[in-house]
């Protein structure tokens, strides 16, 4: 494994920053540095899905990555960060202003090379629909913490259908009050038990595969 990827995986913050500076000085293209970081983030995700890392470590890795991206931004010269793994529209549904889970998923998706359009919190169904239309994204992620949002999630899925996008867009729900029963009620395609499971579902959707059983569960 690349040394930088390894440092990020091990949450060795100082070493990550030192290696990034060293590579910039050596003239390594920013895109290459990002690639190594992505490798590190994928490794963090794997540690999380096998219960060796926890949310606090996911959040810390995301913070380190954010700092690296900020440092590299001026060096990207408006260029893309490399080929995108696909576009994902994500947001917390109307009536709910919580965003911890959504932010973790967003960072992990970006760390895995996805182009993420994060609409924030308290997002109305119409905004999800118009953004899906504009972006052509094939995945919609709906997040919630409060259990009274079940009808609102269902409302978004129905709005996507009413806009004629239902066969083009896969809908994933996630967040504390979600489970398979809630997925069935809302009509969403998938329920992601945690952030890493959500990223796997996105990857499989864009790879053309079908994640198993309509849901993606973390192995215990």
């Amino acid at each position: 494994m690349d040394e930088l990827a390894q440092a990020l995986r091990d949450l060795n913050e100082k070493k990550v920053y030192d290696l990034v500076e060293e590579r910039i000085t050596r003239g390594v293209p920013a895109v290459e540095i990002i690639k190594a970081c992505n490798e590190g983030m994928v490794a963090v995700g794997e540690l999380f899905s096998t219960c060796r890392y926890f949310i606090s470590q996911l959040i810390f890795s995301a913070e380190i990555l954010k700092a690296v991206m900020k440092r590299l931004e001026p060096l990207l010269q408006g260029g893309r960060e490399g080929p995108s793994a696909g576009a994902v529209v994500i947001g917390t549904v109307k009536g709910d202003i919580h965003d911890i889970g959504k932010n973790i998923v967003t960072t992990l998706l970006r760390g895995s090379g996805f182009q993420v359009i994060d609409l924030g919190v308290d997002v109305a169904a119409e905004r999800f629909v118009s953004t899906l239309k504009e972006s052509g994204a094939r995945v919609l992620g709906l997040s919630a913490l409060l259990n009274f949002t079940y009808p609102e999630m269902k409302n978004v899925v129905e709005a996507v259908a009413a806009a004629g996008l239902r066969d083009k867009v896969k809908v994933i729900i996630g967040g504390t009050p979600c489970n398979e029963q809630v997925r069935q009620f809302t009509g969403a395609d998938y329920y992601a038990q945690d952030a890493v499971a959500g990223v796997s579902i996105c990857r499989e959707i864009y790879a053309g595969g079908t994640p198993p059983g309509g849901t993606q569960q973390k192995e215990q």
Partner: protein
Amino acid sequence: MAEDMKKLFDERLGRYQAAIALEPTDRVPIAAGSNYFAEVYTGNTNQETIYDPEKWLQAELSFCRTFPEIDVLRDNRIWAPAFDAVGLKSYKLPGRDLPPTDQFQFVEEEYMKADEYDLLIADPVQFLFDRWLPRILGELKEPGSVRSSIAILKGGMAQVMTGQIMRNRTMVLETEVGMPQPMAGFFLAPFDVLADSMRGLNGIFMDCFRQPEKVVAACEKLVEEVANTALALADPLKRWPIFVPTHKACFLSPEQFDTFYWPSFKKVMDILIDAGYTVRAYLEGDWGLHWRHMLELPKGKVLCDIDNQGDIFKAKKDIGHHQCLAGGIKDSQFILGTPEEMREQVKLLCETVGQGGGYIIGGGCNFPYTTKPENFRAMIDAVLEYGLYDTHVKPRPKTAPAGEVRAFRYPRMVTPWDKKRAELGGVTGDEALIRKPWEMLEAMAYVWLWQWVL
């Protein structure tokens, strides 16, 4: 109190207390910590619940008469005008910032900076006044201004009024429908004090990696502050537990939990238990890797609410022989499920987690707002069918346990009486007559100050 209501009250309280103490009783109590369903069951909006105490009380009286089988109904929710008086920024409220039918929501910000730990540790009260209160209480943003001083005055008056509203509600529920409380008084684990309203989630996790020793020192410093506030707000008769929702533990690795969360949290609980209280701990999220620590506290003293993500069957095996468990029905079951599914789930819970007692049925610490009434009824009917133990046992409340509040390292007052007496150059009459109310008001003001961190 009418004789029949007194009898009902004693029966319900006795049943609840017996379950907490892991002692035999007649049936599984129906005693969720928060009953959101009751607040809106008769059609009140969430705004009315927090702004109109009379409407709120009437709604709950009506709920208790419709579902007399429930054993407790919570009262220590907020009275929103107390928040408005000081401009508390950490909540969005229904009818003020949110639609009147939505539930209130917590807004997390970085109200304490990463480099302010030393200030907090050196002098917490000074830190609160100089840095933290002006940031979190909008009306105090210009310390020393007339508006700011008036806001503190209004805040103190609102605290007294809140106390009166809650006391009245407790008494009316007791005398008119024989309903006890699930808990009174409230605290947070010291780590959650830092994480919720001071550093925020991202901030606290960065601190755990970047300045771990400061986080530990701050948690230690907060132990007595938290315990003092909890005791001040608890039921003086010690009939029901003091409540602690645990917010951030579920995000921590077991090593981080052992380092940052548990030691100071345990110290607070030890103080409360030594003082003769029980604790009701809402173990938010999945505590599966953490809850073994509950074995370190005295048996039957900490009622553990197992959340939707937790595995209550595993909890029964791990700690159920030592602490009472509550929960087992998912939010989605109340909201989306059918009465038949509810009946099956309750049967399963009573036959497993309920075996041998020490079990309270409910959701993950609450009954949700949008619970279907038929599901709630099905839960009750199933408990009456499958949740019976020995019907010859007649539940009776315990007498208030003795207990001693441990002496704190320094008095929880800004201006202790000794200092004031020195300033007066002594008093001419009976000192106790002056000293006692002085200290009472000082203590109340001190609690007012600290309640905002909870």
